[in-house]
């Protein structure tokens, strides 16, 4: 359908088009450019909104999780209380279990303790996985490991670093990649059209189409280069942030160790508070 429309245009329009002024200076195109610029501004605003939304949702999710957790714990405690109500020590089975496990907390608060242990395990696993990720990333200084990641993994990693602005930046890079793909598709279509012998066209028109296709490819290539540059900067930023983070942690731990050293060494006051002072006993 598209091709038919284009052919119809190419057949009927050339005489009309030839009499028009240069389309680069046309009012419509200028308006279109303005619209595109407006759209870009709007996109930026949308991105900012997205970042804010991410921030608010984060807090909302956290509160929701806490409330949910609290509710679950409440339920489990109630269940445990009910089971304790049912405990009948005149029954020999219950009595036996009471004698065997009476000194353990699990016996009285069975389900809550299980839930607590589960949560502990989950948190420890989370922290461990985060540390593994960081270490794996830091092994390669060029950040090639970072490039190998999936999109979801990358997002998870960036969220670990608490960098909303970097997420917005990544979306920008992705948009540029998309632009490149669109330009390439259009160029391919034009080239196919130019090489299609079944369509009736003058060789000059075919040459024009090929030239337009080449221009599109060049434009797409520009976008690709831009995207690559952005990606490189992005990687460098992330690396710098990771480096700073590690440096901060090292500094903090160093200061804490120094404080430990200070507390361990007993303070000496003045000249006479020394082991080298000889104390004489007079009997």
């Amino acid at each position, binding site marked *: 359908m598209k091709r038919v429309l284009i052919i119809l245009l190419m057949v009927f329009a050339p005489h009309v088009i030839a009499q028009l002024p240069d389309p680069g200076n046309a009012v419509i195109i200028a308006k279109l450019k303005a619209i595109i610029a407006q759209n870009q501004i709007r996109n930026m605003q949308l991105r900012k909104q997205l970042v804010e939304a991410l921030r608010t949702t984060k807090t909302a999710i956290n509160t929701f999780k806490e409330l949910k957790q609290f509710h679950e714990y409440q339920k489990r405690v109630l269940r445990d209380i009910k089971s304790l109500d049912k405990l009948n020590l005149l029954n020999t089975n219950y009595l036996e279990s009471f004698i065997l496990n009476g000194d353990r907390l699990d016996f009285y608060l069975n389900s809550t303790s299980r839930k607590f242990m589960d949560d502990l395990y989950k948190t420890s696993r989370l922290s461990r996985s985060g540390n593994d990720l960081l270490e794996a990333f830091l092994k390669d200084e060029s950040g090639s490991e970072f490039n190998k990641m999936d999109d979801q993994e990358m997002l998870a990693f960036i969220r*670990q*670093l*608490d*960098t909303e*602005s*970097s997420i917005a930046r990544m979306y920008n890079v992705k948009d540029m990649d998309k632009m490149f793909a669109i330009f390439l598709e259009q160029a391919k279509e034009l080239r196919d059209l130019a090489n299609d012998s079944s369509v009736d066209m003058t060789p000059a028109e075919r040459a024009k189409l090929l030239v337009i296709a080449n221009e599109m490819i060049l434009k797409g290539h520009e976008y690709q280069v831009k995207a690559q540059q952005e990606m490189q900067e992005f990687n460098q*930023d992330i690396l710098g*942030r990771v480096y*700073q*983070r*590690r440096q*901060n*942690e090292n*500094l*903090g*731990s*160093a*200061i*804490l160790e*120094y*404080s*430990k050293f*200070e*507390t361990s*060494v007993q*303070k*000496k*006051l*003045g*000249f*006479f*508070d*020394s*082991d*080298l*002072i*000889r*104390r*004489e006993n*007079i009997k």
Partner: protein
Amino acid sequence: MNVLQENEFIYNFVYVTLDKFILIARVLMALGVLVYLLYSIFHNTREDRADYRKVLFKIAFTFIALVTYKWWTVEIATLIIGIAKNLDAGNLSNIYKVIGNAFKSRSGIETSLIKPDVMMMELIYWLLLMACLFFVKAATLIFELIQFFIQAILWLLGPIAIVISLFPNFKDAWVRWFNNFVAVAFWSVIYIILVAFFNNLMAQEFEQLLAANASLNLTFDSPIIVIELLVYTVVFFVSIVFIPWYTSIIIPGQNLGGMASMIGAGSLMMVSKVIAPIARKLQKTSMSQKTNIPIK
């Protein structure tokens, strides 16, 4: 400053010189006893003329003090150190703990990459914190150095101060020296109390900073807290360095500058007072020889 207290060279040097000073003091003691007796005999007014029991008591007391010098000085000094260590509530390391935790909590929070003004604020903020730490450390260092060396020098000068008190017009020397000795040992008590007080104040401020840091309201609240901290540190610095002045209020009569002037003036007075009667008598004899009047 445990480096000084663990330095064997300083202590060996001090002990060797102290032995030398005690030797000099023994020689001076013999001279002092003679001068003291002469003074008590030749003194003009009857009120000041010495009671011989008093004289003997003073000579015996100075002798015993000189012999047991190394024992009683060390005992007094260590007693006051024990008092100071009982009052020791905490070290300055609380501040280091808070700063360390702040650094650790700051990791992974991004603010500086977008806003240059915030970046500058943060830079100034950390510089001010480091300046606070530097001031606190410098005050303690200066104080401990001064105390260590003044105490050592006082301990060395002790035997001579004891013996010199036998000479006329040096009666106050021993008392003054003792006042100084106790006061310098007492500095550490005041030092410990002040450090505990300021440590609490500063730890509160640092905890506020930590809370601001965690809630990312760092740029708006922190300057006031940091300025407060700076004021506290300056007051800490001044109060620690001026500890000798406080002790002069608590223990009157301790004046390290006055010691030297007193020794100078006292020696002149002593020379005049001891030699003047002898000179007068010599003058009388010479006059009598000239006029051929016999002396009764």
